[in-house]
């Protein structure tokens, strides 16, 4: 089943009131939602609260979920809102003054957060060995030689894994953007 079909299937199960769909939804997209929340809040603890709030809100509104549409954009929107709600600390959604509604950022932040979601999705699909190399290159800033030493493998092995991983990422990100657009 491709990713879009899987997203629609979860939407259908959620709309039918299947509580196990929430568990499966979390296992499929929980890390992606967490990445978006961390991007907004820069605090893993608060990000977990935002993710918990988002899945709870999604379950509470399950009756209005469109069973024919991929659930991913809706989940992304809900977790983004929950993260921003926590970021404003204590401001309850139902009493936000009208003039402040535009404080919810749009456009630029939306693009950045959606990129975070899709990149995390693509990373999750890499083999573990390739994912580790990518993380060490980009997050830790290590060279191929440093990575080879850390992993106790040949430099050529690191180069091969890096090349395959980045080629796979390019392909995945291109198809993910097309799927959900």
């Amino acid at each position: 089943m491709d990713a879009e079909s899987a997203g629609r299937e979860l939407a259908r199960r959620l709309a039918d009131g299947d509580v196990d769909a929430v568990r499966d939804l979390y296992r499929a997209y929980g890390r992606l939602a967490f990445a978006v929340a961390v991007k907004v809040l820069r605090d893993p603890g608060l990000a977990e609260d935002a993710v918990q709030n988002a899945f709870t809100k999604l379950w509470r509104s399950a009756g209005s979920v469109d069973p024919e549409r991929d659930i991913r954009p809706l989940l992304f929107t809900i977790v983004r809102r929950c993260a921003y709600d926590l970021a404003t600390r204590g401001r309850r959604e139902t009493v936000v003054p009208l003039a402040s509604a535009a404080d919810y950022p749009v456009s630029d932040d939306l693009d950045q957060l959606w990129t975070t979601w899709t990149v995390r999705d693509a990373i999750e699909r890499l083999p573990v060995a390739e994912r580790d190399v990518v993380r060490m290159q980009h997050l830790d800033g290590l060279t191929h030689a440093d990575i080879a030493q850390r992993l106790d493998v040949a430099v050529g092995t690191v180069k091969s894994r890096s090349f395959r991983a980045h080629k796979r990422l390019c392909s995945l990100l291109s198809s993910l953007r097309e799927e959900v657009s």
Partner: protein
Amino acid sequence: MDATCADEQARYLAGETSAGDHIAECDRCAPELAGLDATRAVLADDAVWLEPSADLESRIMTSIGRAPARRRRAFSANRWLLAAAAFVLGILAAFAVQQAFRSGGPSAQAHLALHATALAPAAKATAELRNMPGGLRIELDVHGLGHAPPGYFYQAWLKGPRGAVPIGTFHTGTQDIVLWSGVPLDAYPTMTVTLEPEDGNPASSGKVLLTSAAH
């Protein structure tokens, strides 16, 4: 995309080449440059690599399991009385509207007055509803509600025991806003206006500005 371009994009994403080596100069690759740069920036951000706690899944499932029960336990005797009173008023209002429609025939009219909530205290509106062959035609006159903020719009709903049905959107409170409903007023007797973000999410934001429900 040919193999050379795919390889060059992978190398650029990995930080092994610079834009001038191929990507920026190639007609096929140049459109991808901004996306590749954005991806490189995200790959360097720990937000995309952090893992949530192992117990987050169980906390979510526990929270969901608690949610319905918590709402039931929160109802005190006074709240039950208020809920019962609101229910009776809602029934009376629905009956009155239904009678107005029935006595007037296929093109009968009904009127609703919408009052402000705390989110838009200066706003008020009236709605004239008319049965037409295509559905319920609604003319809304809105006062005291300015242009929606950038990235937002106003949405009108008809609400009843079965849920809420969207009946149209607009961006400024004014007279002669024409909306249409495919559902009957007797089944959805309450009209509301909410403020919605332009995010593609069809669910209501919950930010109710105007409502015809009893105070």
